[in-house]
């Protein structure tokens, strides 16, 4: 077993180079829990992009594993590219201080027949 295999998981290999699905991030939980080390690195080398939802799930996962009284894990996110870093920072900031709910303004209500007429005239 290499040093890398002992305390880190390569996300590009475990999931994909573009990570978007929450369920696949959640599925890492068992794998991480089974690791013998308490300090676990999630290595984002070669990961091109992580969706907002997936980042939210990574942060939730870290939170859950850190709170455990048994088999507690400290998760570190490593080798993130600039876009992945930015996404983590945005989501983490919004979890800490959520934005107010948006209210949709300037939205025109129109029926389909009017749209068809307008489109055929334009």
């Amino acid at each position: 077993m290499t040093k890398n295999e002992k305390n880190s998981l390569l996300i590009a290999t475990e999931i994909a180079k573009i990570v978007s699905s929450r369920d696949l991030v959640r599925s890492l939980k068992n794998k991480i829990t089974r690791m013998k080390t308490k300090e676990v690195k999630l290595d984002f080398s070669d990961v091109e992009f992580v969706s907002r939802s997936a980042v939210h799930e990574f942060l939730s996962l870290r939170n859950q594993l850190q709170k455990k009284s048994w088999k507690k894990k400290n998760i570190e996110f490593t080798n993130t590219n600039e876009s992945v870093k930015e996404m983590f920072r945005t989501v983490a900031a919004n979890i800490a201080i959520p934005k107010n709910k948006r209210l949709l303004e300037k939205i025109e209500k129109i029926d389909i027949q009017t749209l068809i007429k307008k489109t055929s005239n334009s």
Partner: protein
Amino acid sequence: MGGIQNMKTIIVKNEKSDNLIEQFIALYLTLVGVSKNEKVTFDLTDTVWLYPMVILPIASYIIKTKSEFKNSKNDKTKGYLDTIKFPKGINSINEFSLRAQTHKNYVPISALERNKGLEREKLETMFSEMMIKSLGSVKGAESAILYPIGELITNIFEHSNDDLGLVFGQYYPKKSFLDICIVDSGRGLRRAYAEDKNIQVRDDEAIKKVLEGESIKAGKDRGYGVWTSKRMVCEALGGQFILISGSAAFIASQKKQKLLNMPNFYWEGVIISYRIPKPAHKIDITPYLE
């Protein structure tokens, strides 16, 4: 008896122009009056060119209801539909990879299956990479393009309760735009609010709630996906964005937003279609993430 003769035949017409709203109207006119899960025959005989917004919902409908279709009599259109593997698409990364090597300008319909887990994610990655490649390299554009694909596909497996999501995209080099369509035939937004949050709303109200960030799931920092995707498409990339669920639709461009009711039309699930012009300058997605 049974078979093709007994089914309602729906003639799929050519869109009047390549305008995304024209395609939306073409899709509406194709499916208006079709009963829930009614088995039909889509007659594509006279179609010369079909865009993702029309092709993909038809493909999804055929898969779900086991409906049938008559192929185009135009050889090029027929060849195109064969190349993109209409209607069932491709669900394996090996097949996708082979197709991508032989047909560099045509990306097949990707059939993303819930139970395929990692294979599904890798297939989505391959699809996304093909979309980026088709638009060329502009700093920041990659994230802006990947963001809506990731968010909108993950919504299928988080909220729709459907086991299959279809995604399809086509870049038009002469017109310099990329069309992407993402479709599920799940429970739709209205039912998702009713079943998961016990909120009873109409289809148009459900769309409004999604756009206002009322997440179907509990938790902080949820409910951003659709709205920020729409902002990414319309504001960061200067494109157009259309969402259909049930009997309602939302149409947005950089400056205008419309909410529509469509009597006698019902899409069980969600259809999202958007158009991205080829990015010409550096894009910073940060202001649109919220």
